[in-house]
């Protein structure tokens, strides 16, 4: 049974994870849906498994008890990913996991609305994140529209790279847009994320004219983008965007490292230490000097 790991069936979205009690993806207590697939390839990515749009069979080594159940499925030399569902199914510990689940809007609505009482109490809601939601624009727009019909607060968390038309249409259905800015230098941006920043900056400028609730999110990666020059440039650019309400500085942490290794990829930032609390305060002040309400890790 090879269902294929590639294309997403029509009318469905491919998600990577649903995180309830999500605390940093917008106001209140939220449920965040992580969509699979991203056009960027950031070296610090927390969820490198989410980058590919394809479904991926992974093994969580620490849960594996070497029982050999999965090998009983495969012939000699056979790739376990040829029968991923069966492989996951037979694994008794959950070490074998298939990343990427195809869901339709109704199914997903059913899941994300379970925490509605918590949204009501806390002013929270649902955030669509990724990966990059704009890689699955039809599904994302359908989902945001469905949430809006139920009057649930919605947030779209985007890296900004996608078709402008998709961004504007999706953003029009979102109460809040979380927009990442990684580097103001096109070359550096390309070096660390795999793509240039021209389209991203242009998209933000356009979005900022029509959407009034934008929170900029800047990951602070020591040695990569935390130099004053870059952050000053970021601040100047952001200060000129009318729709921006605040800016969150997200201090680097190394949770991505283990995940890179788990999927057999090299992690380039092993030597990087998280920025100190004092440094973060200094950087927040830099943005505040430009009149931008800045937070550290989303805490006002």
């Amino acid at each position: 049974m090879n269902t294929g790991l590639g294309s997403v069936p029509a009318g469905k979205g491919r998600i990577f994870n649903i995180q309830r009690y999500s605390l940093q993806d917008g106001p209140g207590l939220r449920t965040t849906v992580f969509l699979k697939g991203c056009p960027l390839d950031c070296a610090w990515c927390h969820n490198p498994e989410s980058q590919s749009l394809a479904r991926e069979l992974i093994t969580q080594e620490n849960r594996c008890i070497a029982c050999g159940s999965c090998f009983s499925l495969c012939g000699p030399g056979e790739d376990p990913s040829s029968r991923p569902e069966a492989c996951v199914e037979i694994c008794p510990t959950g070490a074998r996991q298939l990343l990427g689940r195809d869901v339709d809007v109704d199914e997903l609505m059913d899941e994300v609305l379970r925490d509605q009482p918590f949204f009501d109490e806390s002013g929270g809601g649902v955030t669509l994140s990724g990966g990059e939601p704009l890689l699955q624009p039809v599904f994302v727009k359908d989902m945001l529209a469905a949430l809006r019909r139920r009057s649930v607060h919605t947030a779209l968390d985007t890296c900004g790279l996608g078709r402008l038309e998709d961004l504007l249409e999706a953003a029009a259905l979102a109460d809040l847009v979380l927009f990442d800015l990684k580097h103001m230098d096109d070359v550096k941006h390309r070096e660390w994320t795999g793509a240039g920043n021209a389209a991203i900056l242009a998209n933000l400028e356009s979005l900022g004219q029509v959407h009034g609730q934008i929170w900029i999110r800047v990951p602070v990666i020591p040695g990569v983008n935390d130099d004053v020059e870059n952050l000053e440039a970021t601040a100047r650019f952001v200060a000129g965007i009318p729709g921006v309400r605040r800016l969150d500085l997200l201090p680097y942490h190394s949770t991505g490292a283990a995940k890179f290794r788990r999927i057999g990829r090299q992690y380039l930032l092993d030597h990087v230490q998280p920025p100190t609390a004092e440094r973060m305060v200094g950087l927040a002040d830099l943005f505040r000097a430009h009149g931008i309400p800045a937070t550290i890790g989303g805490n006002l």
Partner: protein
Amino acid sequence: MNERTARLRQESLDAIPSLSPERAELITAFYREHLGKHAIPVMRALAFKYICQHKTIWIGEGELIVGERGPRPKAVPTYPELTCHSAEDLRILDTRPKTRYQVDEAMIRVYEREIIPFWQGRSLRDQLFQTLPQAWHDAYEAGVFTEFMEQRAPGHTVLDDKIYRKGLRDFQADIACSKALLDVEKDPEAEDKRAQLEAMDIACEALILLAERHAAEAERLAAQTTNATRAAELRRIAEVCRRVPAQAPRDFHEALQYYWFCHQGVITELNGWDAFSPGHLDQHLWPFYQRGLKEGSLTREGARELLECFFVKFNNHTSPSKVGVTAAESGTYTDFANLNLAGLLPDGSDGSNELTDLLLDIIDEMHLLQPSSNVQVSRKTPDATLKHALKVIRNGYGFPSLFNADAVVEEQLRQGKSLEDARAGGCSGCVEVGAFGKEAYILTGYFNLSKMLELALHDGLDPRTGRQLGPHTGAPESFRNVDDLLQAFEAQTHHFLDIKIRGNQVIERLYATRMPAPFLSVLTDDCIRKGKDYNAGGARYNNTFIQAVGIGSLTDSLSAIQQLVFERGDLALPELVSALDVDFEGQEVLRQRLLNKTPKYGNDDAAADDLMVRVFRFLFHAIDGRPNTKGGAYRLEMLPTTCHVYFGQVCQASADGRKAGEPLSEGISPVQGADRSGPTAVLRSAGKMDHVKTGGTLLNMKFTPGLLEGEGGIDRLHHLVRTYFKMDGHHIQFNVVTAAKLREAQEKPESHRDLIVRVAGYSDYFCDLSLELQDEIIRRTEHDTFAQ
């Protein structure tokens, strides 16, 4: 804390729990002389008076609130008329590694010479065991249920506001009035009632006498001391003790001392469960506090000092030591006196006041094991008050716990109480709901749900002993679906509930006739009016609770069987039972599948949660409303204390992947580590239970300190609590400590003696817990959204 209260606190922490033979000697001497000379209630009252007349009076250096149950702090008396320790028991208590009680050789000799010979066969425990039928003994020994009253008297009650308005002399006038109204011609129970009322009158006299002796001792000490300040304090103490409890208190100090004498009386008369508690302390003291500040007779600092002295007294009162199976069941020094803060006033308005905040500060600063504390959170409770409580909780002592005051009222209305009585009620012990000052709400014992499934899977045979313990309900191969299995489970449960309740009828009547509690009856409406004892149905309301343990483990076992056996047909039920019988020996793959690949309660997954709801409904209908011997009814409660550890020890491996002997799930919490979808999913799952139909449910959650940092952390916790309470959740409590820290404490107990954690409805010193319980707490899922 000021210098005085910091010192008193430290002395209390340093005092070593010990057993004192004094009470045993006094009561034995009294019984030896008076046996058969008085009606039983009068005999009990006279014995109480004899103890009050002759016990050692202790007034510690610097104390402002006085009174110790034993001859000194943490010297715990024994109650041989209820449970007579054997010499062996005393030696075990003296030498066991955890929750030890020091016992000197002289006490053991007194026991061997005087106490044991007199009480053997005469103690209530001996009588009770002789009277209970064999089926009860079999089930008890198999670990199907426990019995609270086998060695401690029915207590489980809390005081209301009556003592702040009336002195014991006023109660004596009420007693005299009730006596005068007795009508021998029309009431065949009149003579019995006369004896009960006579006993209550003697009990009032006894406590007044005890207070007078404290006054005399304080005067003696005042005359001796060269310290003029202390002499003045002692004279003030004497003045207070001459006023209360005889007459109503006039000020803050007298109010606290009056309560403390009542507390002494209740826990000296009998060793009732859950000590005793002042209940809504902030509400009761409020008029005295306000008036004192206004008149200038009290300062805020003075009030704080008195309250801190009051707290130390609770901490000095280590719980009475037990014997036999319950030593493992509930190994703790805490005696479950649980203060209620905030909540509602009887008129339905918000009950919080400035004292609520002051008490929260004291709880935080002193972080003593006792008194335990909770905040009754209603819709009307200000956010600021709840947040203040959460900030104390964040410090990780496991208190105060939080209750849904609106649900607590609704639960009581369902049981037929008046709205005002329900609002003046609250929670005591761990999570138990009662109408304070008006109810005997008796916990009768824990009930082992996992054992019921085990019996259902073995056609009534107890796999641990190989004995046919329950009725034949069908071999596993005869079950075609989960309904068939549940039917067998229900038949086993009915069978053992009947045994439990039949046993309880015997026990309740034994207490009613042989072990009345005249002093507690004075304090409980409507004992005086009815001329009936607390233990005989004198209280206005009388509920008896059965506490079901392990609903998480049971649900997960059922859901695993439903999925693997009946839906997927991976293996036949007899094969699964065989695997359980050998504790999964050689079947680790199956065990891993059961652990990891089946629906689990606590994840907001209907496949598991629907089974939980089904079992809960069944338990409710099987228990709720069955009559007890006191005109009240049986109710269902979902609380384990530490019994989930003991019940796990007597259960073989279970279908949720748990190995033989490991603890069951506690309260209504998910199986330790089975909740993997975050705290909101746990609350949604737990919220599917109809809490309003219970007499209390218990939910513990563990958070890492990092998640609760800053105002944002408090806000998020606040949202979780408020939302859970909107869903009618009854109680929630948090452990805020990392698993790493707990492991460290396990390895180096000497440097973590002060680490207090939430156990199950109460907090305890982590290092005093059994290794099994320590492991169990470490395994409870730690919620931290950043750890995936």
